[in-house]
């Protein structure tokens, strides 16, 4: 599980916060970053999150793979937006400062570049904080924190089951896939698309039918132990709140409040330097 979600157990002030705190902060933070397109605010968030990163003792090389992946995604998304709607910025900001033309309708405008800058800042203000959450929150504590912030414990338990069984199912998938490949199924580019889908099914059927048995075994075991009888349950990994937890939640709530305030003051989600 740690290999997929890259939880890094390295004592730091951020690790000490409870999972529920970090989850609440993550939600508040990402809503704040999502709501507003105020460039000043979006420029502040990455700086703040890099500071937090330094605090957490997570090194850049621990997360370099994920960062690389996300950067590719970000660049592709920006290119796609420009390709499909080169004048999107003009329609958002209502003015048009042409810079140069790339031929046809692809005229680069200041507004469009500014819109892309906002998009990039948006990525930069959410990615570090998500990585921080993933790297510093023990997956086992995650379910307990979901329950703490008000998710029903049965649903929180589903999440916990999912996290628990991902490595098992992954292993089983590899075993079945290798057994089927030894029997000659082909999933690479050499086959036609339809054949590839059919060979995927040859792996998925045994995997899913055995998972159905697994569901029955686990739910029998849980029922025998009286799961779901009471309205509440306690969590082994649950921890009480401390001062640092409450402080971090207040800071993140203030960030969200700032975003709302800026949206109201700017009159829209966009901060417009052109008018």
């Amino acid at each position, binding site marked *: 599980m740690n290999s997929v979600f890259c939880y890094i157990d390295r004592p730091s002030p951020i690790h000490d916060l409870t999972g529920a705190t970090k989850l609440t902060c993550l939600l508040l933070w990402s809503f704040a970053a999502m709501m507003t*397109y105020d460039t000043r605010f979006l420029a502040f968030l990455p700086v703040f999150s890099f500071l937090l990163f330094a605090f957490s003792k997570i090194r850049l090389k621990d997360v370099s793979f994920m960062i690389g992946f996300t950067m590719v995604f970000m660049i592709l998304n920006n290119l796609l937006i420009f390709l499909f709607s080169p004048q999107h910025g003009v329609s958002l900001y209502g003015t048009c400062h042409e810079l140069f033309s790339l031929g046809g309708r692809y005229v680069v405008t200041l507004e469009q570049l500014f819109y892309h800058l906002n998009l990039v800042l948006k990525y930069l203000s959410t990615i570090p904080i*998500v990585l921080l959450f993933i790297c510093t929150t023990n997956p086992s504590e995650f379910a307990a924190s979901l329950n703490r912030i008000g998710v029903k414990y049965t*649903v929180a338990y*589903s999440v916990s089951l999912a996290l628990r069984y991902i490595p098992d199912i992954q292993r089983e998938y590899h075993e079945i896939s290798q057994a089927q490949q030894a029997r000659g199924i082909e999933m690479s580019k050499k086959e036609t698309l339809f054949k590839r889908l059919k060979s995927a099914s040859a792996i998925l059927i045994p995997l899913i039918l055995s998972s159905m048995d697994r569901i029955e075994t686990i*739910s029998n075991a849980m029922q025998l132990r009286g*799961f779901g009888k009471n309205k509440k349950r306690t969590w082994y990994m649950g921890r009480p709140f401390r001062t640092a937890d409450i402080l971090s939640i207040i800071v993140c709530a203030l960030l969200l409040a700032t975003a709302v305030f800026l949206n109201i003051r700017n009159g829209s989600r966009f901060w417009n330097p052109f008018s």
Partner: protein
Amino acid sequence: MKKSPVTTIVAIGIGAALFFVLGRFVAIPSPVPNTNISTQYGLLAFMAALFGPVAGILIGLIGHALIDFSYGWGIWWSWVIASAVFGGLVGFLCGKLKLDDGEFGTKGIISFNIFQVIGHIIAWGVIAPVLDILMYAEPANKVFLQGLVGGIANIVTTAIIGTILCYAYAASRPKKGSLSKEA
């Protein structure tokens, strides 16, 4: 057969784990470069048809959110919600399919596929792009095209993988009324 709530909870957990593994590691290379065909929607449709709309919504929600988390780009809420809506719709519409009784004949195949196409059209043709515009202020023609391409690919994979899964599962169950009392 009425399923106990505990079974549904476990099915959501295991279903989300399967959704995650399929979405993250079972990538079938497609003819378009850098685009993989996602097999997980076939699984989601099957699980939703078997365990109902609540399971469908939560498997889509949890599974997709975990995939987004593991890539580290944060949760792309609009598409996560679209996955959940698809699971919920298929679970709701397919309530009458009796996979547990071993029934999945021509009629079942046709109605399953009609329902999954409706689910995908609503999820990727309406929910995902509209939320993209509302939440992320992206240009309309880009998000609708993305939704269209994704939706069509998902319809095809669900039609093949979902149908095969339902068929295989139904075949593995004893038929209702297959035992008769000897005179």
